[in-house]
């Protein structure tokens, strides 16, 4: 059986460094399996988050060989055999321990999103929506909140201060989902412009590149939001028309 050489970050807010572990690699293993193997046999207190092991819950985000990834969906066989693989925590969030970071920023920002506010039901008690009108918001609903896009966005990765007034790509996806929801009647434009830092985004598309759900964050969420905010900020009629007809 080939041996995997893993360099895993160990440490907490006070400091730390990479530690090397050698693990027998079984066929089909993903990085998370190897981390679990290290935990079970060599480093029982190695801290890591995970839940589904199938790319559905967004718990196991880390930087593998410097790339933001879900550990449970990263096969070991994509790396050259015999070369060390580094596994580090997401850098943008404060470290708790080993591979676990404090992602509460994202949950705080989520609290500030103005709620979904639906229009009344149709007279027959249903909400009629055509599939093509919900395809786009459904794309956004695929988000598993892995926060890899938040991790990679330079606006907050390199400038801690910006976290106060920048919601980040994950939250822009959320705003876009609400804005394009055929039933929603709430208006979030001023907030997006003034408090959520939509203007800070300079469309580098780094977020889109790392999204494990392949959500086209920049093209489908951020750019249309920017357009809405700019065009319609002083044109409430246009906004209302778009909202009511559900046009993108």
């Amino acid at each position: 059986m080939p041996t995997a050489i893993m360099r895993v970050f160990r440490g907490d807010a006070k400091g730390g460094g990479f530690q090397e572990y050698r693990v027998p690699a079984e066929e089909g293993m993903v990085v998370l399996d190897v981390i679990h193997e290290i935990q079970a046999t060599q480093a029982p207190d190695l801290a890591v988050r995970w839940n589904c092991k199938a790319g559905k819950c967004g718990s196991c985000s880390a930087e593998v060989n410097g790339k933001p990834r879900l550990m449970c969906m990263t096969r070991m066989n994509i790396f050259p055999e015999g070369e060390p693989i580094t596994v580090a925590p997401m850098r943008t969030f404060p470290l708790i321990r080993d591979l676990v970071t404090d992602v509460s920023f994202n949950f705080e920002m989520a609290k500030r999103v103005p709620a979904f506010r639906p229009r009344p039901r149709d007279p027959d008690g249903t909400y009629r929506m055509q599939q093509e009108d919900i395809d786009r918001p459904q794309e956004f609903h695929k988000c598993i909140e892995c926060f890899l896009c938040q991790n990679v966005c330079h606006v907050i990765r390199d400038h801690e201060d910006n976290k106060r007034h920048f919601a980040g790509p994950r939250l822009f996806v959320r705003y876009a989902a609400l804005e394009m929801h055929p039933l929603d009647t709430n208006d979030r434009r001023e907030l997006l412009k003034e408090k959520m830092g939509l203007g800070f985004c300079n469309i580098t598309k780094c977020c889109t590149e790392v999204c494990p759900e392949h959500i086209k964050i920049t093209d489908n969420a951020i750019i249309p939001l920017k357009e809405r905010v700019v065009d319609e900020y002083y044109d409430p009629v246009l906004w209302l028309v778009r909202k009511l007809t559900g046009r993108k």
Partner: protein
Amino acid sequence: MAETKYETHEYDVIVIGAGGAGLRAAIEASARGVKTALVCKSLLGKAHTVMAEGGIAAALGNVYPEDNWQVHFRDTLRGGKMLNNWRMAQLHAQEAPARVLELEEWGALFDRTQDGRILQRDFGGHRYARLAHVGDRTGLEMIRTLQQHAVHKGIDVFMECTIIRLLLDGGRIAGAFGYWRESGRFVTFKAKAVVLATGGIGKIWKFTSNSWEYTGDGVTMALDAGADLIDMECYQFHPTGMVWPPSVRGILVTEGVRGDGGTLKNSFGERFMFKYIPEFFRAETAETEEEADRWYTDKKNNRRTPDLLPRDEVARAINSEVKMVRGSPHGGVFLDIASRRDADYIKRRLPSMYHQFKELADVDITKEPMEVGPTAHYMNGGVRVDADTAATAVPGLFAAGEIAGGLHGANRLGGNSLSDLVVFGRRAGLYAAEYAQNLKGTLTVDAGWVEALAQEALEPFQRTGGENPYAIHRDLQETMQSLVGIIRTEGELKKALEELATLKERARRVRVDGNRQYNPSWHLTLDLHSLLTVSEVVTLAALERKESRGGHTRDDYPKPDPEWGRVNIAVRRRHGDITLTPDPLPEMPDELKKLLEER
């Protein structure tokens, strides 16, 4: 209330567990105006509910207007081999449609019919296409909708906070005690009422679709507090989990694959399910491949494909095919949708299955069959509750979701869990709030007891024994997999009990290294108590039920026995010991009995 030296919070209602059931309970309790908190082991939004794939069952009648709650009720009881609590099944079937529409009103976007209503898909054991869904990621849509709704309602959330014990005062609920995973510090909740929504126990088996969270904490805490458990022997093994490569073994393959036209085949290419149609379902199941294939588009004139028999039947059939050496190369059978539906359809209907096989197994499901086999999946039984109020036998303690028993009887139908969560989550929140509002007098949390619990939890740091908690967990999973799996015998069950006794001994010698800060080996060490308790309960109950029914199959008693069909096995802890009693099922009213007689 006496003070303990630990961080303390006071609420009217605390909800333990933030999956669909817990979120819905917290939303309801908070809407009733009581001070409510939600506590969960993982981050918010990561509970099991997020993984649910195929859909939520509700007789909306959007695709088949013939569908209604009576048919859903009947399907649920037949699927559960009549061991269900009839009242729960009735409430569930009646209220599920309103709960689904409520999710839509809170922002959920289900896939649509041509005329713009909620689309429904076929699933095992449901007579009509009944599952509202979003591709194969329905649970994600549901948990996100509920999570966002709860957040906007301002409910306090304690995430990555694990509860280890319920606190009682004179037999009534007085709160709960736990620790923050991040810091390892203890925390006490004082509460008038507690809703348990902690889900299942799937981590006692080796091949499982469940995550690290499913260690049976809630079930164990309820048992230790004096509540009854029922139907614990009837565990559901889902017929289709991944089998290859080894590291993904057990990960779920949704029943939606078969609902959307996929079919099971053995190594000879034979659609073997036609050989396994039980007498009980013969009248409603297709006998030929032609009829089965026509059924997908014309349900009026054809009977359902045996590929969509209830899960217990399909899991046993796969098990036999593998035993008779007609399986696939890696010890499963084939699940083929590639030869039956075009690639676009498969990718649109089953995007995450496509992705999962492509990324994890190098299999393109639009071109080749999948290899699948049974995997531990769902606790059909659980904590016994009052059907209407979700109250347990302990005053102030409520339970909803996978943790609660009764609704599903001996076997749950696919899609009936997500609907269970919202129907009974809402009821649990409602009645917990009502209980808290009406509670007279004061509750005291015994500071000495809390201190003893804290010391007990810290003990593994001081031990000199050399046991590793991961090794004990692995050995437990081997034991349960090989001796208390799908097919059981008295000899093996007794052997399992002996092995469990040894494992309990070993658990007392676990030593934890490192400190209390985010230390998974300490967390697992604390979970061992529940893992071992629920394993023992399942094994004892399996030994007791001397027949085969639903999720419980005995090789030495291969047939259902009408006598056993009249009782639930109730498990209680009295003075430290676990006791089992056969309790008669609640008597069903005649008008509901009539529904069951109709075809």
